[in-house]
C-alpha cells in the first residue's frame, strides 16, 4: 500500500523536475535580453540558496555572511575578465591609483582555469578556516552568526580600502571577452546562461546527494542536538566545517556566474544586506527542502525586479509585506504551503515532513 502511494508521487515529482529543466534549457528561445539576463541572475542566486539551505536548513548553522563567499567567487572571475579586457594594459583603476605593475596575486588570474578554480577554492578555503576556528571551539548559534557578520564587515572594509588592488567601492566592471569571444554577443550570452542552468542542476544534485546520504542525516542530527551527536561518537565540527565549505563553494560558483551575467562585482554585493537577502531566499522558498531554496530564489529575485519596476516608490512596502505574509501564513515557505495544501487534500500524514522548527525544545532540565 505504501509503495503504491509512493510511486505516483515519485513519478509526478520526476515529471515536474523534467518540465522545469526543459523550461530552463529552452528559455533563450522565448526570453528577451533583459529577461534572460534576469533569469540567469535568479539561477545564480538559486545556487547560493541551495548552499545556504544545506547549511541552515539541514545543519542549523545560520550564516549571514555568504555575500563574502559569493563575492570572492565573483571577484576571482572578475579579475580574469578584467585582465582579458585590458589586454596587456593595467586595469584602469590601478592606473588611477598609481600602480605601475600588475600585483603578483593578479598575475595567475590571466588563466581562466586558475580563476575558475580559485572562485571555488578561495571561498571554500576561507570557510574551512573560519569553520576551524569556530566550530572546533564550539562557537555556534547566534555567536557563529555574528561572526559571519564580522567577516562581512572585515572583508568589505578591506575591499573598499584596498582600492588599488580591488577597485574599491566601484568594484570591477567593464568586461569584454571570455575565451576570446565577445561577452556581449547573443551566442555568448546564451552559452553563459546554459552554463548556469547546468551549474544549478549539478549543484542541486550534489546537495541532494549530500542530504539523502547518511552524512545528511548526521547533519540534521547535529542541528537537533550537537552535543548529543558527540556522545554517539561523531565529531560535529568536522561535519559543520564540511557543510560550511560546500556551502561557501556553491556561493563562490554562483558569484562567478553572477559576474558573467551582471557584468559587475563590487563590495556592495558582499555587504550585510545582500548576505541577509540570500538567507531570505531560503526562507521564502522553504527551509529544509532543496527545491524550496531554488523556488525561493527565483520567485524573490523576479518579484524584486517586477515590484521595483512597477512601484518604484512603494515597492518596499510590498516586499516587506510579502515577507510578513510568508512567515505568518506560510510557515515553511512556499514549499511548506504546497505541502500543507497537499496534506489537506490527501489527508495523509507525511512521516518525513519538513521540520519547521529545528529547535524543538526538549526540556530545560537535567540531562
Amino acid at each position, binding site marked *: 500500500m505504501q509503495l503504491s502511494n509512493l510511486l505516483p508521487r515519485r513519478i509526478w515529482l520526476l515529471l515536474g523536475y523534467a518540465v522545469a529543466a526543459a523550461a530552463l534549457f529552452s528559455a533563450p528561445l522565448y526570453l528577451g535580453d533583459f529577461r534572460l539576463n534576469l533569469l540567469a541572475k535568479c539561477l545564480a542566486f538559486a545556487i547560493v540558496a541551495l548552499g545556504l539551505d544545506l547549511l541552515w536548513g539541514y545543519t542549523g548553522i545560520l550564516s549571514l555572511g555568504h555575500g563574502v563567499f559569493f563575492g570572492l567567487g565573483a571577484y576571482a572571475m572578475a579579475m580574469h575578465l578584467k585582465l582579458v579586457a585590458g589586454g596587456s594594459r593595467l586595469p584602469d583603476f590601478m592606473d588611477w591609483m598609481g600602480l605601475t605593475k600588475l600585483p603578483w596575486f593578479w598575475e595567475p588570474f590571466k588563466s581562466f582555469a586558475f580563476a575558475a578554480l580559485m572562485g571555488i577554492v578561495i571561498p571554500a578555503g576561507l570557510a574551512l578556516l573560519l569553520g576551524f576556528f569556530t566550530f572546533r571551539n564550539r562557537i555556534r548559534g547566534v555567536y557563529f552568526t555574528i561572526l559571519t557578520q564580522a567577516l562581512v564587515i572585515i572583508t568589505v572594509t578591506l575591499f573598499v580600502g584596498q582600492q588599488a588592488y580591488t577597485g574599491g567601492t566601484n568594484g570591477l566592471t567593464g568586461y569584454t571577452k571570455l575565451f576570446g569571444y565577445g561577452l556581449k554577443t547573443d551566442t555568448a550570452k546564451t552559452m553563459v546562461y546554459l552554463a548556469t542552468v547546468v551549474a544549478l542542476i549539478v549543484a542541486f544534485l550534489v546537495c541532494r546527494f549530500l542530504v539523502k546520504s547518511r552524512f545528511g542525516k548526521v547533519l540534521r542530527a547535529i542541528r537537533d542536538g550537537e552535543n548529543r551527536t558527540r*556522545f*554517539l561518537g561523531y565529531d560535529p565540527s568536522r561535519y559543520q566545517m564540511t557543510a560550511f565549505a560546500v556551502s561557501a563553494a556553491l556561493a563562490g560558483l554562483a558569484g562567478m556566474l553572477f559576474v558573467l551575467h551582471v557584468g559587475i562585482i563590487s563590495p556592495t554585493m558582499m555587504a550585510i544586506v545582500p548576505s541577509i537577502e540570500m538567507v531570505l531566499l531560503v526562507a521564502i522558498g522553504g527551509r529544509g527542502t532543496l527545491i524550496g531554496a531554488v523556488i525561493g530564489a527565483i520567485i524573490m529575485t523576479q518579484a524584486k525586479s517586477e515590484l521595483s519596476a512597477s512601484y518604484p516608490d512603494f515597492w518596499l512596502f510590498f516586499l516587506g509585506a510579502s515577507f510578513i505574509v510568508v512567515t505568518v501564513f506560510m510557515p515553511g515557505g512556499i514549499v511548506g504551503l504546497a505541502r500543507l495544501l497537499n496534506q489537506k487534500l490527501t489527508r495523509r500524514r507525511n512521516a518525513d515532513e519538513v521540520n519547521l522548527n529545528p529547535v524543538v525544545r526538549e526540556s530545560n532540565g537535567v540531562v
Partner: protein
Amino acid sequence: MKSTSILSCEKVTVSFDGFKAVQDMSLELASGELRFLIGPNGAGKTTMLDAICGKVKPAAGNVTFHGKQGTVDVTRRKEHEIAQLGIGRKFQTPSIFSGLTVDENLEIAMAQNRGVWATLRASMKKSDRERIDAELELIGLGDKKRLRAGLLSHGEKQWLEIGMMLLQEPEILLLDEPVAGMTDKETDKTGELLQEIVRKRTVVVVEHDMEFVRNFASKVTVMHEGKLLKEGSMDEVQRDDRVAEVYLGRKRRDFDAIGSTA
C-alpha cells in the same frame, strides 16, 4: 567469579563554581558486570556518569578505561573520542534527535565508522536494515519508525534512546534512569534485557526504582553527597542504616523487606 576491570575511577572530584558535586569518588567496574548506582537526589550519580563519558571534566582524579583499544585515560579525551572508545550513555531526560525520524535516529546511532567520508559513502546494507528492524521490534516502535522522534511520547523517547544505545554497541553502557515512566511489566522486560546485554558488555544503571534494583542487581553502589556511602549486594545495602536514613526511608525498607519475602 573472576573478571578483569574495564573501568576504574579513582578519587574523582567534580566541582561547579566551588560546589563539589562529586568528591573523591572511586568506582571499579569489572568487565561484564551489571552495576547499579543509587543514592539520594543530588548525590552526584548523574555527575559521575558525566565524568565518565566526558560531559564534565573532573577537577581531580582519574578515569581509566581498559577497553579493546588498550588502557586510556578518559579525562584527556574529547566526548566523541570517548564514545568511539566504547562508552555509551543514555541521559536522564530523553535526548533524541527530534527532527529525525525514529528510523534515522537508530541509523546514525548504529555502530559504524563515524568519519565524514565514511558517512558520505555509507549505504544501508541489508544486514543493517535487519538490525534496525529488530531493534525497532524490541523497543516497540516498529509502527512509528517513520515518525519524527520529536513527536513521540515521553516514554517512547526513553525507549528510543535505549534502542540507540544498544545499536551503538558500546563496551560500557551508562544508563541514567532507564525505566522511569515505564509500566511495571515494561520495567521487568527492561531488566531482562539488561541481563541479556551484560553477557557481552558492561552496564551501569542509575535507578530509583528499588523493586527493579532488587530484582536485577548483583552489586550496588550507593552515593551520598558526592561520596561513596556503601557498596555491596542489595541485601547488604538495604540493611545499612545510613542508606535507609538518607535514601530509602525507614518505612520503605520495611515495606520492601516484606515485599521481597512475599
